[in-house]
Every structure is written in structure tokens, then in C-alpha cells.
């Protein structure tokens, strides 16, 4: 039976009751029949209005998500890229600054150690020298033998002091160079927030459109490598450390 035939059956009786009431000028019966027809039609109309409202609401939500997404894509993603590039630049500068200071300090420490070693040797030679005899002449010989040691100490101490001061200053600068972590941390945190927002907007959009999204696989080329292991992100069988790598390779006969 078609929809219209069903409607004919449902409404037919009402229309007949309505016609009967008109013919008989029965006001009460007329209104009863009209009310009945209106009630029959009502649920369908309400459903349609509800659907329209729902569609309108979805369209509005979609519009607001889409304009937020457009804003993210147009402004915030390029911003985030610039910010992350800046992070690389800052970490690079801090690492080079630290390496500069370490490279500068190494030879200073080496020189102090070398000169102190030479001094220890001179003192040893002095102590182990053959006896210069007793009396005044012996004392003079002893002083003569000690003089070069004194001169060496005199030469060593100021340079040891300058070198140590420089090393201490370099260490303080190494300490300061680590300040990058605070700044890069803040920038990275803001990018994490943006990624979270983007994720949320995309998820809402997917939910609104009701599409089932297949998980897209990135066109990843394993030959290029995956980068460092990130706990909670890196999947698959990962070596836990150098010992693990060594065991794996020796298992392969290396």
C-alpha cells in the first residue's frame, strides 16, 4: 500500500466527519474533526522543524569549526613552524656556545696540570739532589739549587690563577647558556597547545560530518629513519640501550 493510500484511509474518515459536521451545522463536531486532523499532522511537522533546527545548528557549528580551522591553517600553523625553527636555532646556539667554552677551558686545565707536573718534578729533583755539604757553602749551594724551583713556582702561580679564573668564568657561562631550556620549553608548550586544539577541531568536524575516516598512513620511507625514540609514541620493537644493540648485533655474528 502506498503512503498516499494510507493517508487516504487515515484522513478520509476525518474529512468525512468534517463534511458531516458542516452539512449538519454541528459546531462542536466540526471543531472536534478539525482538531483531530491538526493532531494527525502535528508530529510530522514537529519532526521536520526539529530536523531543520538540528541541521541549522550543525551548519552553524560546522561554520564555527571551519573558520577556526581556517584561522589555524592560515596563521597559527605557519607561526608554529617559525617558532619551532626558532627553537632549533636557540638550541643550536646554546650547544655551540657550550662547546666553545668547553673547548676553550680544556687547554687551560691541561696547561695548569702540565705545569704543576713539571713543578712536582723540580721539587723531587731538588729533594733528591746530592748533598751540597755542610756549613755556609752547603747552605749557599742548597739555596742556589732551590732558586730555579722558586722561579718556576713564581711563574706558575699567576698563570695557574688566571687559568683557573678563566675556567671558573667559562663554567659560569656554560651554566647561563642552559637558560635556553626555559625559553624553548615555553615555545614548545605553546605549539603542543595548538596541536591539541587542531586535533579537537578536526575530531569535532569528523563527528559532525559523520564520515568514517580511515586511518591514513603517512608515506613514510623507513630508509630515511624515524628519529629518536619518544616514550609513549614510538611503536615497534625498540632497543633499550647500547647493551641491547650489542647483543642484537653479536646475535647476527658481528
Amino acid at each position, binding site marked *: 500500500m502506498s503512503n498516499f493510500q494510507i493517508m487516504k484511509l487515515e484522513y478520509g474518515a476525518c474529512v468525512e466527519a468534517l463534511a458531516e459536521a458542516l452539512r449538519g451545522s454541528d459546531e462542536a463536531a466540526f471543531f472536534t474533526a478539525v482538531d483531530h486532523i491538526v493532531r494527525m499532522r502535528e508530529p510530522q511537522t514537529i519532526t521536520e522543524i526539529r530536523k531543520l533546527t538540528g541541521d541549522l545548528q550543525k551548519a552553524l557549528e560546522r561554520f564555527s569549526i571551519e573558520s577556526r580551522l581556517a584561522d589555524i591553517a592560515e596563521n597559527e600553523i605557519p607561526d608554529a613552524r617559525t617558532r619551532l625553527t626558532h627553537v632549533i636555532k636557540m638550541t643550536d646556539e646554546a650547544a655551540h656556545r657550550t662547546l666553545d667554552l*668547553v673547548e676553550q677551558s680544556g687547554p687551560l686545565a691541561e696547561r695548569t696540570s702540565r705545569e704543576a707536573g713539571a713543578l712536582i718534578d723540580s721539587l723531587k729533583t731538588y729533594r733528591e739532589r746530592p748533598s751540597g755539604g755542610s756549613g755556609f757553602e752547603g747552605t749557599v749551594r742548597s739555596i742556589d739549587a732551590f732558586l730555579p724551583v722558586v722561579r718556576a713556582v713564581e711563574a706558575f702561580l699567576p698563570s695557574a690563577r688566571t687559568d683557573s679564573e678563566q675556567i671558573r668564568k667559562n663554567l659560569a657561562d656554560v651554566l647561563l647558556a642552559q637558560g635556553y631550556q626555559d625559553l624553548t620549553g615555553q615555545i614548545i608548550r605553546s605549539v603542543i597547545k595548538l596541536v591539541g586544539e587542531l586535533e579537537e577541531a578536526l575530531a569535532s568536524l569528523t563527528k559532525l560530518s559523520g564520515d568514517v575516516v580511515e586511518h591514513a598512513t603517512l608515506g613514510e620511507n623507513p630508509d630515511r*629513519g624515524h628519529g629518536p625514540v619518544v616514550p609513549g609514541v614510538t611503536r*615497534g620493537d*625498540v*632497543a633499550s640501550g*647500547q647493551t641491547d644493540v650489542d647483543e*642484537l648485533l653479536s646475535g647476527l655474528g*658481528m
Partner: protein
Amino acid sequence: MSKDLKFLVVDDFSTMRRIIKNLLHDLGYPNVAEADDGKTALPMLQAGGFDFLITDWNMPGMPGLELIKAVRADPKLAKMPVLMLTAEAKREQIIEAAQAGVNGYVIKPFTAETLKEKLDKILGGGK
């Protein structure tokens, strides 16, 4: 073991190249050149004069694994000792690198002792 060996260190991060260069210097190998990816490294290697290659894996341009395959495919370079120094830690990758012909595999972050141990082993010092 000869300390005149000439090393080529390939890594896209200049800080890492500097760290490796410093460590090699401390180990008594002052002769070190640098390249920032496989594409730059390969012509340098082919031009000759290098005795040892230390390479990262994940680099723009030509990655380390591709560089190693190219080195092993070149009759002049096929026997060059190669140490892979990388953050790549998946077992399948380590196996792949071994199959490509690396002589050693060190994962980052690494220590000076690990580097020394691997170099000694590869160079036959073993001490």
C-alpha cells in the same frame, strides 16, 4: 694502531659533528673532516684520502643508510670501516644497517667510552 687515520663525520647537526670531532681528538685522532649529509659526504669519500666513516642515519638529502649502501657498492670504498652513530633504535633498523654492511652501531645518546670501545674493536685494537 695508526693515529693518522682520516675520519669523515657525517651528521646534519653541526653540534653533534663538533661533539664527535672533539671526542675523536681526545682519543688521539685529530684528522677529522665533516659533511652534513650523504649527498655531500659521498663525493668527499670518492675523492679519496679517508680511512674511516662515522655517519648518522636520519638526515635530509641522502640519509645514512643510503650512504652506506653507496659506499659498499663502490669498489674503491667497499672495505672502508663504517660506524653508524644514530638515534634510530628499532631492532629492524639495526638489522637492516648490519645487512647494509656497517662495522659498528652506536645509539645516541652515547658515551665517550662506547665510542672508544667501538673504534678500538673496528680498528682491531680491541683493548
